[in-house]
């Protein structure tokens, strides 16, 4: 009988999880659709001095629903020589790994699906399941382009898993705990050299970790400048080439869902999550929390998509070289410095 103090009513376990599940199931599609609309439709077009979709709904807002509807009513095609079972299952695996990320992101003092005390570790571990889904998709599509795309993306995701994790280790050392809620509280009431007014958002002290996390997140999402697996000009659409209909929508939702989740984790780890100074706790805090987290997520997502619309694409070997020769040593150095400072301070 977990008591939800917030609502001051007694809920049995399964009722609480049902509510949380419902909340998560609405946040993900909503979040990714907002992300698609704001960044992929509006920001990208304005950056390219054009208006973007304007017809559907006021200022093109309903265009996103039209896109989703279009994918749903498209025919679901299986290539002739495809391995049907694996081909059908691959998008499910990819989307499951994205959904599980949302289990540990705190949106308010009490608004968290499950406050695991190994939250960060769980999030990053679950994030790497999508590699299996991508390999399944690439192999089962029985087409040259998909195979090449899948192999490239497997190499890339594994190569960038490491800097992602190592960048987070610095934050964990400084916060002293791995649970995301704990990290938010550590940032809330920590202070830098005695000046504690705005708490201690780790972006200030862990700036290198923040930059590495952003670059690695960009690579995890296979976005330009790391979008080799889905390089249009060479491999048409990488592992997604043969997919159509709602299976392609799964991949699409997975991509933007994980973009939303990774920006959420980045906001929580580096920008103080749902905390903002003078946030009243209790009911009001739980209402303001998601809004604050949403704003921070939008800021981090802006950085990610800004890089996506400006830079050309790395070549495969350059991409790997950056991960192994530049990001990993930098994040290790960051960990060492944080460790020493933690002890000395």
């Amino acid at each position, binding site marked *: 009988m977990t008591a939800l103090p917030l609502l001051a009513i007694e809920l049995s376990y399964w009722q609480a999880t049902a509510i949380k599940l419902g909340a998560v199931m609405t946040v993900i599609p909503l979040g990714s659709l907002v992300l698609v609309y704001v960044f992929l439709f509006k920001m990208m077009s304005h950056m390219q*001095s054009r208006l973007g979709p304007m017809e559907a709904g006021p200022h093109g807002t309903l265009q996103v629903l039209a896109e989703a509807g279009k994918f749903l009513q498209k025919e679901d095609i299986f290539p002739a020589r495809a391995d049907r079972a694996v081909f059908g299952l691959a998008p499910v695996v990819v989307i499951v790994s994205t959904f599980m990320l949302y289990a540990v992101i705190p949106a308010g003092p009490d608004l968290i699906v499950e406050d695991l005390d190994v939250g960060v570790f769980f999030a990053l571990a679950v994030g790497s399941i999508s590699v299996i889904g991508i390999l399944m998709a690439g192999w089962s599509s029985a087409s040259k382009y998909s195979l090449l795309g899948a192999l490239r993306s497997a190499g890339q995701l594994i190569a960038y898993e490491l800097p992602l994790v190592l960048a987070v280790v610095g934050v964990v050392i400084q916060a002293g705990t791995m649970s995301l809620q704990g990290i938010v509280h550590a940032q809330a009431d920590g202070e830098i050299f005695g000046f504690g007014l705005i708490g201690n958002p780790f972006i200030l002290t862990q700036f290198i970790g923040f930059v590495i996390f952003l670059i690695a997140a960009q690579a995890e999402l296979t976005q330009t400048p790391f979008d080799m697996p889905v390089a249009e000009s*060479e491999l048409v659409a990488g592992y997604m080439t043969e997919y159509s209909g709602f299976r392609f929508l799964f991949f699409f939702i997975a991509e933007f869902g994980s973009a939303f989740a990774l920006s959420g984790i980045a906001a929580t780890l580096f920008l103080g999550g749902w905390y903002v100074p003078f946030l009243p706790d209790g009911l009001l805090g739980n209402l303001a929390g998601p809004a604050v987290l949403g704003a921070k997520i939008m800021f981090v997502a802006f950085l990610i998509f800004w890089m996506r619309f400006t*830079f050309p*694409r790395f070549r495969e070997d350059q991409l790997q070289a950056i991960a192994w020769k530049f990001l990993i040593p930098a994040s290790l150095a960051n960990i060492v410095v944080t460790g020493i400072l933690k002890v000395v301070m």
Partner: protein
Amino acid sequence: MSLTSNPAPVDWQKASYVAAQAADARVNVELETEGMILNIGPQHPATHGTLRVVVRLDGEEVVWAEPICGYMHRGYEKLTEVRTYPQVTTLINRIDWLGSFANEVPFILGAEQLMGIEAPPRAQWIRTIFFEMARIANLTLFLGDMGVQLGALTPVFYAFRDREYVLNLIESATGGRFHPNYDRIGGLKDDLPRGWIDECQGAMRKVRSFCDELEDLLMGNEIFQARTRGIGVIPAAIGLDYGMSGANIRASGIDWDLRRDSESPLAWKEVDWKVWTHPDGDSFARYWVRLQEVREATSIVDQLLEGLPAGPIMSKVPKIIKVPAGEVWCHTENPLGEMGYYIVSQGGLGPFRCKIRSASFNNVSILSWLLKGVYVPDVITILASLYFILGDIDR
């Protein structure tokens, strides 16, 4: 050879990569593994039109490549034999459809040379203005498109946005945006509309700001440089051997530009401008040379607009044009390279034989040599940097 290199010669991994590029020795050492045949094209975003490059891969590396063309072959040389001279000019500005006014000029100059007539100076100046504007319209699209081939989405939209001003100007004077059909034997169809000159100066300012924007956005970008420096290095001697011309050969250090080196009646002599070369000969050099050429073209157009002489634009020409018998070879420096027409006339209403020498045909013939031992993503970079138009190859 005289390497009049403008920037400090950057020895950017060149030595190591040129060795890799000397692929003949490398390839036949490999054991004959059954590589994967990949068809890039004929419908492929990287080829400007329907070029198909059959590539055998060993992993991600190209072992053997062969461009196959002919998907766009319209048989122009046969068509010119059954058409009169005015009809041929409408035909040939569809060869290089991006800089289409520049196709008409060598044919008309050749016919005028055969007939021994000369267009009035105002017509020659306006022809040079439109020639350079065709070059701007052609090369700005390339500058944007090179970004898209490397994955940057934004530059191509800037290219289309600022190219639109140039196309609107061409349309307001000639009537057609892509196929102006404005050149006549002996002069031009009619004169510029009022207010065209200061509109043109405005457009040139916009194109210059586009070049600066692109230099910041793309050329300065470390990722772009990492993707293009040292890729697809063409030594000057081999380039000339294949008959490469235009920015492709100037990027390998050959200081040769037909606008300056051949005596053409157009107005390039009255304007001071500079031929840009680059010593490296790699994809970056080709991009860099074309960017400077666009800037140079805008300054040429500005100077021409100031000094435009008054006077008629059409000289005395009989209504039915019959070119006397004779042969002439006339070539100019088109946006893609050297374009020339070998016109054989036997006094008829149309040419007896008209060999169309287009730049992209030779520029692309180097591909099978150039693509050996190259990664797949570099194949796209090299295809984009050579910048060919399919109409130019297939005619």
